[in-house]
């Protein structure tokens, strides 16, 4: 068993009396797809936001590749190899699809306090962006304004942007949210293609996708991890079943 690339140790976060992250320990091993599932309001997005740095935890530690990143700003975490997509589509709508990815590549190819050389001529950024677009199957949309892409394509673009930062760990916050059946299938295929190349922490509601993709599943209920294991074990777990009461047919 490989060492964990991402580790959460005793993570806690409360909003007033509401505890959204309750002493969460989580270890994501290198190269696996680790899914976090849980009913609405379980604190999945808050958890991923703490890992990403958008939300500061009250207590506990986040360790990325052996380094505590708990108090680091968002952009610094990115430079340590953490990339993410957002639950609500989060792209640069006025940029072309290609430039969305190219700017992500730019962030990880030297500094950007360069004021004279036209960035459009930096073919290495372009090429890197095209490679990432190819991975998610968006090459034919490269020159289109990103705001004009379909919802599913925007989700693909988010993954391409994350890939362009050459990450160690990919945090994907409900990449399938709001997508059509075909788009979900396509995203699942894209993520399947990433297996082994990246370590992925996947928060997702679409159970078909989760059980198709995940190597390990953690179940979060009211901010606590109530179960963790292989998909078959999770599917059979009575506690998980009762947490998803009424949604049993999904499992």
């Amino acid at each position, binding site marked *: 068993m490989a060492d964990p690339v991402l580790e959460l140790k005793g993570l806690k976060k409360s909003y007033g009396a509401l505890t959204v992250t309750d002493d969460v320990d989580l270890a994501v091993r290198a190269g696996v797809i680790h899914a976090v599932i849980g009913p609405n309001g379980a604190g999945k997005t808050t958890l991923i936001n703490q890992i990403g740095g*958008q939300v500061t935890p009250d207590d506990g530690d986040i360790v990325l590749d052996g380094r505590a990143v708990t108090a680091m700003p968002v*952009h610094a975490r990115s430079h340590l190899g953490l990339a993410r997509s957002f639950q609500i589509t989060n792209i640069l709508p006025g940029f072309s699809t290609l430039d969305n990815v190219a700017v992500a590549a730019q962030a990880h190819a030297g500094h950007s306090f360069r004021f004279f050389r036209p960035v*459009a001529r930096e073919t290495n950024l372009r090429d890197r962006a095209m490679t990432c677009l190819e991975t998610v199957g968006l090459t034919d949309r490269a020159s289109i304004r990103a705001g004009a892409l379909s919802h599913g394509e925007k989700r693909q673009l988010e993954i391409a942007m994350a890939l362009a930062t050459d990450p160690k760990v990919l945090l994907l916050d409900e990449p399938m949210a709001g997508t059509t059946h075909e788009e979900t299938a396509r995203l699942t295929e894209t993520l399947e293609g990433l297996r082994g190349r990246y370590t992925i922490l996947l928060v997702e509601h679409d159970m078909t996708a989760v059980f198709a993709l995940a190597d390990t599943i953690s179940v979060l209920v009211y901010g606590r991890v109530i179960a963790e294991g292989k998909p078959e074990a999770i599917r059979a777990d009575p506690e998980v079943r009762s947490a998803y009461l009424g949604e049993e047919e999904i499992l």
Partner: protein
Amino acid sequence: MSENLTRGWVIAAVLLLAFAALPPLAEATGHSYLTVVASRVMIYAIAALSLDLILGYGAMVSFGHAAFIGIGAYAVGISAEHGLWEGTLTFPLAMAAAGLFALVTGAISLRTRGVYFIMITLAFGQMAYYTASSLSAYGGDDGLTIWGRSELFASPLLENEWSFYFFVLACLSLCWWFASRVVGSRFGRVIAGVRENRARMAAIGFDPYRHQLVAYVISGMIAGLAGALLANHSEFVSPAYMSWQRSGDLIIMVVLGGMGTLYGAVLGAVAYLALEDVLAGFTEHWRVIFGPLLILIVLYARGGIARAFRGEGRDG
């Protein structure tokens, strides 16, 4: 993108050539005062360019931009008061002073966003205004008369209206060229990216604050240069250069011309000052006409004058 760039270069070339042709034409038609008017227009065009850099490309609505102009102007005025007339020293000094003010105020202002950013830049602008008003050694409220123009390498070249005009034109061309390079650079893409989506830019590894601060300082320095030129143009500086109305005028120029195009800022400065001139010819209450006109432009011609040069309107 590249099509936009080409269009920008063409419009810049046409405008700059038109400016270059103006003095001889004005002379030939007996309207030589137009040369003096047009050099003022170009000075404001430089200031508008600097504002467009942060407002149009970076969505930083600075409502205290006139302070940079005023600081640049005072740098020249105060230097002259102490016997320093050499423009090769005072112009960089003006830019450095404005840049330093931008660095300090920007470091604080850029921690806020939206309306708060507007309010805090306005507050800093007013601070500069009242500071200038209280400089009793340098004229205080009444302003400071500068007894002549800056020298260039000890030569009184700028005393001549034509040389001054072409010096301003050279500054405008240089600033324009510089700004267009910045906009197309790595740095420019980060600034535009932060405008589009700050959280996303942070998530892919950029520190939005640092980049915005540098842009703010660059913008302040260019505005400082405009101030130094303005002091030379009027041979006078006063706190009125820093009033919030002046900052508002600059925003109007950029919006009127079309944000985020650079040439729009120049067109906006030309259009604003020309309109001011024409409307003021009708009535001293020209703002009564200008105000509604502006509202109509914002409502029905979003994208400003620059939009007329583009195939389609700007959506979003």
